[in-house]
């Protein structure tokens, strides 16, 4: 039997990840160790969480352009309120998840383009973050710092956490009834509504899940960096979108994969380290990272074309 197109789709981010990892090990054999891997994937966990957050939005055919600003906001709250008065910090973070759910409701009821709404919200989140933390600073709560720097035996923390996160998100998006309905809204909103489901509820739930994962991403980031800054995660908006697409997702049609999205996020995180090992001047690194992204996405397009030709045959 030929491998299903889904399998090929899912294999791509892992192949890309493997290729990059091979390149890194070849350039710097000492990276092939517990500490080395830990350093390589150090910042992968928050990126993976932000990518999963974006995945829930993309699953209902929307796009979130405020993800980076929101993660930055969550990081600022974590480094200040959650550290000093935990109950207030927790309340603020919970409220921000509720705001995300409300955004889903507004976008659905008023039929607004999600891109416009979230672009506007990105300035709101950024503004709030600057108000909370005008200059870089704050401190990570001790328990969070401990959690993010724990050294489990055998497998580096970053990889173990990524695996756990991917598994949890996979259960939600692929196995739960809610996940099926969310993806169904992306695939054929009308037939989901015809079958008696509330599309409003599904979209609000997808946005709330995105808010939850965004908050977790901000907290993980502070746990790693020990302090926060309003601009700390602005790159995450585009990284998270790229991660979802790299991981086999589609912009429309509700085709998303949690495991793929995490693999895509790890690939993106590794691309930066790979370029450093190449001793590429930092001036060129962002451009080169973009080039790697274009290369892998071009592979995706190639696979899509093959898939379509097969479907027609």
């Amino acid at each position, binding site marked *: 039997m030929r491998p299903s197109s889904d399998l090929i789709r899912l294999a791509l981010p892992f192949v890309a990840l493997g290729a990059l990892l091979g390149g890194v090990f070849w350039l710097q054999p000492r990276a092939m160790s517990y500490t080395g891997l830990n350093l390589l994937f150090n910042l992968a966990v928050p990126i993976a969480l932000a990518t999963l957050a974006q995945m829930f939005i993309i699953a209902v055919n929307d796009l979130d352009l405020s993800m980076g600003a929101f993660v930055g906001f969550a990081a600022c709250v974590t480094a200040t309120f959650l550290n000093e008065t935990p109950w207030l910090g927790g309340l603020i973070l919970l409220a921000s998840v509720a705001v995300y759910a409300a955004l889903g409701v507004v976008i659905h009821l008023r039929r607004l383009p999600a891109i416009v709404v979230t672009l506007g919200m990105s300035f709101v989140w950024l503004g709030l973050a600057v108000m909370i933390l005008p200059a870089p600073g704050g401190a990570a709560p001790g328990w969070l710092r401990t959690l993010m720097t724990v050294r489990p035996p055998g497998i580096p923390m970053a990889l173990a956490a990524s695996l756990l996160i991917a598994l949890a998100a996979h259960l939600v998006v692929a196995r739960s009834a809610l996940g099926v309905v969310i993806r169904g809204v992306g695939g054929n909103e009308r037939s989901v509504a*015809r079958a*008696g489901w509330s599309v409003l509820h599904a979209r609000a739930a997808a946005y709330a899940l995105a808010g939850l994962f965004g908050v977790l991403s901000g907290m993980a980031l502070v746990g790693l960096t020990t302090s926060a800054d309003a601009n700390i995660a602005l790159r995450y908006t585009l990284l998270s979108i790229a991660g979802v697409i790299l991981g086999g997702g589609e912009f429309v049609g509700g*085709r998303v994969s949690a495991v793929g999205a995490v693999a895509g996020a790890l690939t993106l995180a590794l691309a930066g380290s790979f370029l450093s090992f190449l001793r590429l001047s930092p001036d060129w690194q962002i451009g080169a990272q973009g080039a790697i992204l274009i290369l892998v996405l071009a592979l995706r397009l190639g696979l899509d074309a093959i898939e379509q030709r097969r479907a027609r045959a």
Partner: protein
Amino acid sequence: MIPHMRDMSPLLSVSDARLRFGEVTALDGVSLALHPGECLGLVGHNGAGKSTLVNVLNGSLSPHAGRVIADGHAGRWDVTTARALGLRCVFQELSLCPNLTVAENARILHRGHFGPRWRAEARRLAREALDAVFPGHGIDVQAQVASLALAQRQMVEIALAFAEAGRPARLVILDEPTSSLDAGVAGQLLAHIRRFVAGGGTVVLISHILSEVLATATRIVVMKDGRVVADRPADSFTQAGLVAAMGSTARERRRPGRNGLSGPVTPLVVQEMARGLPVRVAAGEVVGLSGLAGHGQTEMLRALHDRLAPGWIAGRRPKVAYVAGDRRHDGILPLWSIRRNLTISALASLARRGLVDERAEAAIAEHWRARIGIRSPDLGLPILSLSGGNQQKVLFARALLAEAPLVLMDDPLRGVDVGTKQEIYDIIRAEAAAGRAFVWYSTEIEEMELCDRVYVFREGAAVAELTGDRISEAAILAASFAGPDTEAAA
């Protein structure tokens, strides 16, 4: 109306339903009762009101006048109450979620039926549903719907509609269910419909394959122009009788001003298709595309346009112009003035050194306003200030302005008032007499009688070519609905 009243009270009935969409009367006083244990065949040409009636039956549309009575109660009738009654619908456009697996689609369709271990239950439900209708189907219920062939997707959709989940299905509405099934699988479906009906279920079957309807339905309702024109037991109909019932009784033929091209003419373009007859268009000819909506006419127009339209470099004189049917979607530029909407197709010839000559633009716009009678005090007003018919005239003028030798029209007069239609017919005839060629897809048969040559489409291919006096409503109906055995008659 029903000659064979049954003892049982109807499961669902509508009485004197009326519904209008703007200018168009979709239902003009339709009464229909569906009884347990019958399969109702519903036939009619485009615009006869079949889809509107189905949408009233399934609760998506509520009629402006008339009542829907379900199970003897005349309460609220909407999608939710329809589902509660056990009504299931299979629509022509597939309504599964392509990104989900077959089992997950079963989960979506049958809400509230599953427990916490729903994955195994949904797989079993989907498998049993498919086995019941299409034994030996060979469909993996864990496969993503997008990876299935079109016929398999339709099989899944039909099987899930009949599935025993929670509330049993009591009334199943099938709109063209066999359009992508091969004969063997279609036979399995029709056999299942008979079993379902024998067990007390009710089916409404809409199909353009009349032999199927005749063989499966117990009663046949023929619709025309939003009315029920015949309602009799199926065995009192023949195929020819059905086609005749769908047509109008007697209407004088109006075909003035035809330029009477006869014999072989050198075609301007020939559009070969994968199947069926090639479509030939000669200069000065009006070629009609007919048949039931969605049988490949628009695709043919698009293919012809894509072949002739410039890919990289647009020349000064375009080879083809296109009048869109869906005005709002791909016709007008809603934020622009009437004038700019009109002249966009001729900007290349209106421009001097890259700048638009506004005086020439105004002059040409005024010329066309007078020529086709756009009713507006000022062409500088926004296009949306015009009525739908006048917007359509602007789109016509835009296409004619381009001076292309070939004009493609994708059902452009849908929902346009009669007066405007007559004016546009006159313009088409005048332009054709001046040597321009038109390819005209219309869902209205009468308009085909204004054409010099008509191709009737069925299942994505042109199956009949009618010329001159052979263009008639009867001939077009016969070709659109032909079953395998009437192929020769078309």
